[in-house]
């Protein structure tokens, strides 16, 4: 009898331990996913911050460039650089036949002519001399150099030919290939060529959208929260508004995209693909988040503050505007930043209002077509070229960096400025 009881007790204790273990392993799983995730993004993305350059001697032959003696600045602008660019690439292998010369040309980006031109514009004295110029390597060679490209594939399945690899290896052993920090990733707009594509346009697009979103959502949401929390009579209508807000907070984001498409574009004829429309759409989405945060922080201001102000003869409006609202601001602001961080990561509604268009210029105002960082991730992720994979990861790193900064900022505001009422 006693033994039975002991067995039962043991069983129950074992069950207890098992249950505890389940819980622990669930947390462990969740954290494991997070780690794999971050690791995967970083390990594929960090290499995009480096860019491979080929150092190629270029002879600035005045005759080939169609320049006469003492050319002016305009002459230099208009000169023909294609021939010397081509020649300097072909000179890498003196025995190359025509096909091979073509392959040599494709070892660098199609931008190489411009890079040579800029070199000369910076130093016009180079005419007639030879100088080693840094040329952007093609994205395939860039990947080869970073070790992301499988060299052991059969040649016909590779985008890099054996001949190109041979020349490239020669250059590497001569120290003529260099990897430098990829500034153009931050300063270039999107491009069809992976080696030239950058995040500048989508970054500006994101900034403009978020600013538009902030300028619309913040005032409206704060005013609405003040009304609902401080002035609204308790009746069916205000209940209805409340149910509405709670539901809006849970409506899928793509539905807001349909709203933007069906109302902002189709009825109001606002310009397509612009951060203006994107920002308005996002602001409708962020509105409930900010309202809920602002109401919570208004509610947290103790009634004694209001009573004191009213007792001193302030009107209800004065009490609210001079005392309650300023005291609730830290909570409201941190809620706003968190809402904006959500909006910054949103993709689907922006796709629907046309912010997926290929934009290779950097937008100067919210009325210019642009992409945004998450949409850029989507566009690049859909591209087949290998060079874009690391770009996507790098873009994700930039986006996550921003989200982390915004959330930290929200935390700091909350902890530094929020009054603790006890």
């Amino acid at each position, binding site marked *: 009898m006693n033994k039975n009881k002991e067995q039962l007790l043991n069983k*129950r204790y074992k*069950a*207890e331990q098992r*249950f*505890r273990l389940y*819980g622990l392993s*669930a*947390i462990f799983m*969740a*954290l494991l*996913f*997070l780690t794999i995730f971050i690791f995967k*993004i970083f390990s*594929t993305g960090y290499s995009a911050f480096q860019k491979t350059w080929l150092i190629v001697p270029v002879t600035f032959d005045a005759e080939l460039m169609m320049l006469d003696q003492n050319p002016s600045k305009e002459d230099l602008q208009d000169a023909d650089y294609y021939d010397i660019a081509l020649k300097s690439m072909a000179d890498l292998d003196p025995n190359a036949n025509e096909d091979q010369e073509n392959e040599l040309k494709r070892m660098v980006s199609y931008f190489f002519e411009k890079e040579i031109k800029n070199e000369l514009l910076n130093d016009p004295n180079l005419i007639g001399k030879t100088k080693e110029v840094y040329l952007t390597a093609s994205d395939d060679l860039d990947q080869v150099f970073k070790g992301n490209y499988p060299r052991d594939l059969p040649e016909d399945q590779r985008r890099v030919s054996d001949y190109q690899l041979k020349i490239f290896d020669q250059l590497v052993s001569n120290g003529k290939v260099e990897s430098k920090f990829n500034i153009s990733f931050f300063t270039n707009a999107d491009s069809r060529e992976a080696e030239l594509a950058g995040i500048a346009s989508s970054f500006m697009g994101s900034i403009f959208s978020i600013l538009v979103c902030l300028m619309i959502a913040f*005032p409206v*949401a704060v*005013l*609405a929260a003040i*009304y*609902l929390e401080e*002035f*609204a009579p308790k009746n069916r209508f205000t209940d209805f*508004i409340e149910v*509405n807000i*709670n*539901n*809006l907070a*849970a*409506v*899928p*984001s*793509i*539905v*807001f*995209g*349909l*709203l933007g*498409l*069906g*109302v902002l574009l*189709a009825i109001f004829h606002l310009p397509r693909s612009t951060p203006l429309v994107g920002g308005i759409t996002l602001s*409708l989405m962020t*509105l409930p988040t900010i309202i809920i945060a602002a109401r919570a922080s208004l509610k947290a201001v103790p009634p004694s503050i209001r009573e004191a102000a009213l007792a001193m003869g302030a009107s*209800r*409006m004065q009490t609210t505007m001079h005392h309650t609202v300023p005291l609730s601001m830290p909570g409201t602001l941190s809620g706003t930043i968190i809402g904006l*961080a959500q909006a910054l*990561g949103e*993709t*689907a509604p922006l*796709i629907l209002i046309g912010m997926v268009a290929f934009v290779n210029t950097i937008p100067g105002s919210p009325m210019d077509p642009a992409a945004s960082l*998450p*949409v850029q*991730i*989507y566009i690049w992720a*859909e591209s087949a070229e290998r060079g874009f*994979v690391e770009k*996507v*990861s790098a873009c*994700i790193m930039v986006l996550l960096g921003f*989200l982390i900064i915004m959330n930290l900022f929200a935390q700091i505001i909350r902890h530094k400025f929020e009054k603790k009422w006890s």
Partner: protein
Amino acid sequence: MNLILFTFIVLLGFTSYYFGRKKAYTIQSTKKRLTALPQFYGYYLAIWCAIPAFIIFSLWAIFEPTIVKLLILSDYSNQGYLDDELNLLYEKSKALSRGQFTGEITPFIEASAEKYLSLRSIAQSSKVVIVLSAIIASVAYAYKRISSNSRTREPVEKFLNAVLFTASLAAILTTVGIVFSLIFQTIDFFKVIPLFDFVFGTHWYPAKAFVRDSSEALDPTMYSDTFGAVPIFAGTFFIAFIAMCVAIPIGLMSGIYLAEYASTKVRQYAKPLIEILAGIPTVVYGFFAALTVGPFLKELGTSMGLEVSAESALAAGGVMGIMIIPFISSLSDDVITSVPQSLRDGSYAMGATKSETIKRVIFPAALPGIVGSILLGVSRAVGETMIVVMASGLAANLTLNPLESTSTITAQIVVILIGDQAFGDPKTQAAFALGMSLFLVTLCLNIVALRVVKKYREKYE
């Protein structure tokens, strides 16, 4: 021009604030008692200065183009043009007046362009005159009221109250906007495609509708068997089901562990770390699912002799599940912590172990709240877009095999609407009809979930 006028109104508003306040001080200096603080005199004058002007200004901006268009087209009214042709004529004359017209210039269009220009200039100058005279009139009225020292605080506060109230209508307006933008397209869609075919049809192939020659009239028989949404609905709930299979056990167990077992220190670090998962943008999950999880599952399947699609429902659903874990874990954590301590103490006093208490006492007590949190999770899974767009297939297969690819409502909306859309095309309308069904489904889920959670909270408060 508009910008200048706008800035001018704003500047005038500011000046009148200072002007009104100064007036209050002069009244005060005559030893009269003010009816409100001096700044209210300023606010009063500023509101009267700027608000009527802004109202006229924006009404003008809304109605000017329509009226100008009407006036110009009245020239053509008796010549039997169709509406579309009239619109074209109007656009042509507008383009010509801006010097951007490239086509053939007929005397008619030239005359209209001239008329357009003259109408525009008349409109511009009369707008300035009307706005300015409105400002003068309203400021004069308000100034008189201030001078006679009548009440200013009450009207100002009433105005502010009205502004606050209008702002709170924004949420309703958004909902109305959503319904409005969806409903017309949806109705148009169901005029061409019978509701029955949409809800019960099993073939979804919208690309077929696109091949149609645009000169042909709409032929409903062409679309039969094209817009049957059953595979889409099935795919949506199937992927959501897979996601919940991942999210519920992990989310719930970690919620329970955090609420009942974890020390404050573990809780302090583990909870925000898990919540990071909720802050990661969905497009990032989509990339992860498409680039890492999909190929990984395919390889794993091939090594076990299974045929796995690279865009399997399993990859999309699984990653979506990871995304939903934090929603379920933090909501159920909250719910479990709010179960009163007395229930636990009672159970321990009867000799129950901790896990027995959780399973037999706390879990049943917290069940409504947990169900609510799961429903919110389902609603998120159903409405999630980027993961499915990037990681699951775009062709609508009616399948229950998680290793094959399926498509969802959200993915189809994106596929249809990406790029340029022609409104009035049944394919575009189909996207709006899908959006409508998505909105309704998530609305129901949300209402039920929020209600359940609210009821539960009231029970223990």
